[in-house]
């Protein structure tokens, strides 16, 4: 594993810590993220409250730690939905006949016409807000994109020389698909999805910021910022740190994803 830049190591380390915080937040903080202390509202960072307190005197640091689970869940969950849905449709389109391909691609054209956030807002208007609805909404909104990428990938592999070579050897059609087309199509899409996790996480917290995702008092980075914006003039720390958590997470995911992409393309640097 030599030749990996320190930035990539750092990003991977941050990701490991984030996943740990999502699984076992108690390891990172001793304070209750929901504990209200009306005597200590909007306190600046101190030894007791590392990142200060919010308008209800709750510890901002422990709320960020406990918010990790929801935020990561939104990012990874939404992309998982997009991957499964988009992957199935994309493979069908890439392998199917002209009719199947045309149908799926025209449907995805329609889907792509709606911005992710707006499509999510329709789902929420109909089905109501909340973490899970936001997750499904963002996941569904991403399906057309992944369907396109998977189809393009499948098609380009189907036309590659090594697939022709496999046919020339006498391998049957389904075998060629199982052995050569699908395995080679999966990897680049998974790598793309890694980077997509960051975008989905931002979309999820944006919904919470708009008051349509994770409802208070449950800690979530976007909804923390939603309240924090009312106290910008009095408590800078409240508006700064939850957002920093989002950005840090997105950067880490992106750095690791890009490194995976470079490596798979054989140009690690």
């Amino acid at each position, binding site marked *: 594993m030599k030749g990996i830049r320190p930035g990539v190591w750092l990003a991977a380390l941050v990701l490991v810590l984030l996943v740990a915080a999502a699984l076992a937040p108690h390891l990172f903080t001793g304070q209750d993220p929901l504990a209200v202390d009306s005597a200590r509202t909007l306190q600046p960072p101190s030894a007791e409250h590392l990142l200060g307190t919010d308008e209800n005197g709750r510890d901002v640091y422990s709320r960020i730690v406990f918010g990790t689970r929801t935020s990561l869940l939104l990012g990874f969950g939404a992309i998982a939905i997009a991957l499964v849905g988009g992957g199935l449709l994309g493979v069908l389109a890439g392998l199917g006949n002209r009719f199947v391909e045309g149908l799926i691609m*025209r*449907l995805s*054209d*329609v889907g*792509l*016409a*709606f*911005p*992710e*956030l*707006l*499509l999510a*807002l*329709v789902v*929420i*208007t*109909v089905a109501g807000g909340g973490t899970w609805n936001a997750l499904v909404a963002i996941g569904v909104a991403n399906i057309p*994109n992944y369907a*396109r*990428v998977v189809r*393009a990938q499948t098609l380009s592999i189907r036309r590659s020389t090594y697939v022709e070579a496999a046919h020339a050897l006498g391998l049957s059609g389904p075998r060629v698909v199982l052995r050569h087309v699908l395995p080679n199509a999966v990897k680049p899409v998974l790598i793309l999805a890694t980077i997509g996790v*960051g975008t989905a996480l*931002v*979309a999820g*917290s*944006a919904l919470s*910021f*708009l*008051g*349509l995702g994770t409802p208070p008092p449950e800690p979530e980075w*976007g909804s923390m*910022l939603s309240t*924090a*914006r009312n106290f*910008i*003039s009095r408590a*800078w720390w409240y*508006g*700064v740190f*939850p*957002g*920093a958590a*989002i*950005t840090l997470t*997105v*950067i880490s995911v*992106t*750095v690791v994803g890009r490194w995976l992409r470079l490596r798979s393309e054989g140009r690690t640097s």
Partner: protein
Amino acid sequence: MNRVLRLIGWRLLAGAGVLWGAATLSFLVIQFTPGDPAQAIVGGENAAPTPEVIAQVTREYGLDRPWYEQYLSHLGRVLHGDLGTSYRLHEPVTQAIGEQAGATVELALAAAVVALTLSVAVALATARRRRWVRGAASGAELLVASTPSFWLGILLLTVFSFGLRILPATGSHGFRSLILPAFALALPIAGVLGHVLREALEEVLEEPFIVSARTRGLADLTVRLRHALRHALTPLVTMSGYWVGALLGGAVITETLFTRQGIGRLLISAVDAKDLPVVLGVVLLSAGIYVLVNLVVDLLYLVIDPRLREVPAAAGRVVEGAA
């Protein structure tokens, strides 16, 4: 030229198809919203409309007729630009959107200009330069691209409105009130565009025809502007879907954060009040903008890449993908 016209014709047809799909989708949403569609239209299960209102909606939307008649009349209404009536605002959806459109267009255009200028300038200045220059540029791009606009907005407010007190925190009147929202909306987009543009430029600058141009004695800046930029713009144009989504979605957030007027605020209040006609109206509008932008993009391709003017319509699809 004949082929150009045919390409445009095909694209118009495809755009019409997408809009038809979008209208169908909005119809399905109304139909399959749990409970009585009339109830859904006037604000979901929590609303308490009078029986007269329900009767009016049922009549207006033809909810007592068979589904295919409803579907056709729904398409007919959309085709005429009738997006229904907002039950929160008691006015036609088109009118409600029209009143708010100006502010949003202003914001989106300002942000687009900022994002484009920044990303093109930074990419041109840093592509294939010294290692540390590229490192710094790519780090800055990654940072702003990973910063959600709602947080960036809070940071800008903290510094410029409440710290330095030089720019207003809210409002939608005048140029000064536009600066912070425009940058909050533009910077994350500029980060993404800059990254794509710089990668494209670095690739193009390796091409033999660039070496060829250099061997003719052209200055570096001339090579970049005259030969490389045109090639590198293609992926930027290809990402039009991302552009539209990021600007519209971002406008929703920025308008909320900076309490600006606009379609975004209208949309969020409609979602809160379960004012379905307004929500679907805005979404249909955004699909319309997407289709329009895509048409413009196809024409832009023809300007950027004259080779496409000679291939038949179907081959225009070569340039898609990489969304």
